[in-house]
């Protein structure tokens, strides 16, 4: 049956624009699209097992991420944009993992064996996620790592007091369950050439991370006691000490890596820890939490100072650092272009750690082109390279944090799988959903929303924790987790569905009903004839969609196609009723006045 054009137009407008299925802010921002809203609700309901199941649908590292995820979800959280107090999404994840992550309930099914083999370079989160997905697709996955321990930068960058190593090992045991093979202590480019590796496998995923720390061209940088964050943190991670470091440690840099260095410095026995940043305190790129916790641990912040010269003593060891005052860090276009003034200052130190960025080292023998920061040149949507069988993931391809590395690993694995199955790499893929995106959700705050404070974690006292590598944050109690979960606004639209009973009988949101209509080209008459035409839907809809109006227009077409009669059996009586209401017996007109 044909409907009038306005019916199709409205149905299309509603189907295209309805926010009923639009992701919550948190879930859209998560590169892995963990169903944050759902698991927080489950925790709130006391269903921690259910929450765990929800998390594991997307993440194999729940406890790890619960502790160290840089949580883009929290930056996007509605409670952040409204009140500056986001849900503690990551901490809730850790709570669920500690409470309910049972190895026995892990999904260890793999795809049917394809006979294809993929080499993955790097046992960091990108390589691990790629290997998991490759096994799920039925391919053989072999991870090569030059280290003897798994986890990549999570293991040799992120300090132990933030991420206990047994958590990584436990969560990585999932890969063994899936049959991922590990060749540890094997360095590609040294122990095996990239060419040989390619020859042994049907495809290669390069996920070697960014492990080359550098020292900027500062005068005196050759002095003993000068090092970089990567080398320092790696040594501390593997040995809980540092051959290079002395007792008065200065860290250069204002990001999270610098905070890790400074806080690690205490833990290997430093007596004085300073942090030298170009940025002013308010401009520091590190997270608020890390800054706060570093200050609690008495790290001395020297903000707006640049390193002018490192002066060594007679033995060649660092003795003094001369600093010059920073006037501004960024130019008017927001580009990094520090300007210095005349003022200088000297501080005493025996160690300088530069935490000023990490670079990607080449493992391909120059085969794949690199750009800024050593990152490989890839097609950003597919992570394919100039070589058909080579894909890049993680920091090596452009990520900066663990959960991004995972999403990039997933992406690369998907492309590799398509390549191995001789499928087109791009066709039919929804690239938007393969990474973070900004949701189109735009709804008023739920009625009665209050600004409730975020539950802080249970941190050990700074004076105690700064001397050991045990976790500094003890995590939430049951009570705190529930309390925190109850702050979640469960962001969604579906406002019309709260208002309208009838639509709930036919779908989850108008997108279902009108989308189905457009797809089928027809609709059961009972649907439009169940509408009260009350306007409640349009009244609450942030987009004012003409839902009732469209049902009404459909009715008109049903009548036109049914000899002027309603298709609903029950309406016979109404038609009679109406007829009587216009009959002579029951009507009159009387002119007033003279």
């Amino acid at each position: 049956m044909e409907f009038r054009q306005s019916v199709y137009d409205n149905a299309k407008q509603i189907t295209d624009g309805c926010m009923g299925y639009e992701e919550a802010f948190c879930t859209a921002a998560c590169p892995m699209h963990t169903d944050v809203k759902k698991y927080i609700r489950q925790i709130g309901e006391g269903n921690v097992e259910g929450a765990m199941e929800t998390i594991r649908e997307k993440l194999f590292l729940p406890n790890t991420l619960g502790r160290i995820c840089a949580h883009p979800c929290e930056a996007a959280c509605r409670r952040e944009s409204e009140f500056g107090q986001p849900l503690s999404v990551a901490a809730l994840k850790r709570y669920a993992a500690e409470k309910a992550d049972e190895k026995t309930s892990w999904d260890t099914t793999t795809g049917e064996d394809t006979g294809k083999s993929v080499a993955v370079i790097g046992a960091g989160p990108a390589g691990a996620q790629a290997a998991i997905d490759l096994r799920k697709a039925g391919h053989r996955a072999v991870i090569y790592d030059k280290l003897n321990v798994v986890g990549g930068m999570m293991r040799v960058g992120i300090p132990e007091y933030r991420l206990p190593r047994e958590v990584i090992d436990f969560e990585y045991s999932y890969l063994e369950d899936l049959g991922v093979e590990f060749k540890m202590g094997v360095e590609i480019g040294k122990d095996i050439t990239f060419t040989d590796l390619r020859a042994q496998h049907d495809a290669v995923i390069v996920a070697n991370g960014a492990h080359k720390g550098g020292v900027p061209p500062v005068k005196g940088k050759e002095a003993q006691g000068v090092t970089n964050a990567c080398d320092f943190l790696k040594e501390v991670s593997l040995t809980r000490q540092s051959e290079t470091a002395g007792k008065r440690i200065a860290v250069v840099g204002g990001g999270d890596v610098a905070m890790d260095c400074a806080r690690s410095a205490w833990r290997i026995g430093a007596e004085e820890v300073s942090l030298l940043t170009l940025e002013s305190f308010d401009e520091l790129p590190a997270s608020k939490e890390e800054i706060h916790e570093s200050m609690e641990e008495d790290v001395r912040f020297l903000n707006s100072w640049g390193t002018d010269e490192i002066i060594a003593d007679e033995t060649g060891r660092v003795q003094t650092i001369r600093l010059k005052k920073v006037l501004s860090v960024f130019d008017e276009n927001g580009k990094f272009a520090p300007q210095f003034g005349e003022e200088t200052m000297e501080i005493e130190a025996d160690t300088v750690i530069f935490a000023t960025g990490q670079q990607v080292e080449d493992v391909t023998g120059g085969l794949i082109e690199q750009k800024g920061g050593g990152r490989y040149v890839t097609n950003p949507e597919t992570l394919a390279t100039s070589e058909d069988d080579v894909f890049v993931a993680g920091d090596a391809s452009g990520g900066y944090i663990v959960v991004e590395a995972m999403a990039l690993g997933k992406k690369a694995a998907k492309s590799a799988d398509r390549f191995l199955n001789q499928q087109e790499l791009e066709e039919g893929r929804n690239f938007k959903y393969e990474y973070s995106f900004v949701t189109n959700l735009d709804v008023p705050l739920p009625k009665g929303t209050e600004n409730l404070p975020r539950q802080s974690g249970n941190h050990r006292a700074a004076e105690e924790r700064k001397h050991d590598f045990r976790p500094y944050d003890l995590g939430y109690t049951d009570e705190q987790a529930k309390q925190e979960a109850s702050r979640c606004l469960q962001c969604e639209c579906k406002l019309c569905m709260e208002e309208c009973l009838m639509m709930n009988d036919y779908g989850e949101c108008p997108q279902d009903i009108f989308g189905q209509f457009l797809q089928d080209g027809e609709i059961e008459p009972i649907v439009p004839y169940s509408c009260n035409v009350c306007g409640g839907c349009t009244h609450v809809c942030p987009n004012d969609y003409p839902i009732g109006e469209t049902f009404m227009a459909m009715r008109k077409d049903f009548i036109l196609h049914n000899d002027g009669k309603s298709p609903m059996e029950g309406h016979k009586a109404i038609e009679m009723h109406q007829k009587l209401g216009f009959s002579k017996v029951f009507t009159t007109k009387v002119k007033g006045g003279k």
Partner: protein
Amino acid sequence: MTASKKGFMPGCSLPSYTPEGVQKTMEYLKEIYPDLGGVQKCCGKGTKALGQEEKFKERFDGLQQDMDDIGIDTMIVACQNCYKTINETSETTKAESLWTLLPKIGLPEEVRGKAKDSDVIFAVHDSCSTRYEREMQDGIRWILRELGYRVEESENSFENARCCGFGGMIVPANPDLANRVMQRRADDFESDYVVVYCAACRASLSKVGKKAFHILDLLWGPVVHRDDDAPEDVLSKPAQAWINRYKSKRVVKKVVKA
């Protein structure tokens, strides 16, 4: 200056419910507007709601003819559907709601303050079809206050009004759903006593156990006290309803001609 020529039109559900209410209302209007005319007919909203455009047009044309025949330019109505239908359809006749008119002309002396000792607190069910007619909604509160009743508002008052379940002719099409909509609307109100200003809404809320009064019941009828019952649900009894409609038609004639 040409004074507007006013008429009164009870519509269909109101005259089927209360010929007495129609009579008293018209008598009072007639005191104020001695030249008051009257039309008894349905506005055609039901036909329109079914989607019968042609038939609706035909029927409304008939109503227009009636209004024109008796020289009406402003039709006073006591039903939100009549109000909307006429204003949306007629190019020459304007519908004026009784609920905005009464605050302007005032209530008869004898009813003012009559309920000031009533212990009932009324919730107000606003009609969804006129959710954005704030003046009308305020008029109802004004009448209640003038009578002396106390009023309780709910989250779903005024523009957040919800359907009583009767709208869109869904009762015969999907009775189970209609019942759920009625119940949901009833649950919006804390008070058992609800005042409505549409006779069909009254029937809906009565069906699910609310003590629902039409504002005209309160205006012209006895003062309501706690534990008093609401009038019976006449609209659910077709024979009774049609007799009432017939009576109302006679009322219209009688009052105008008086």
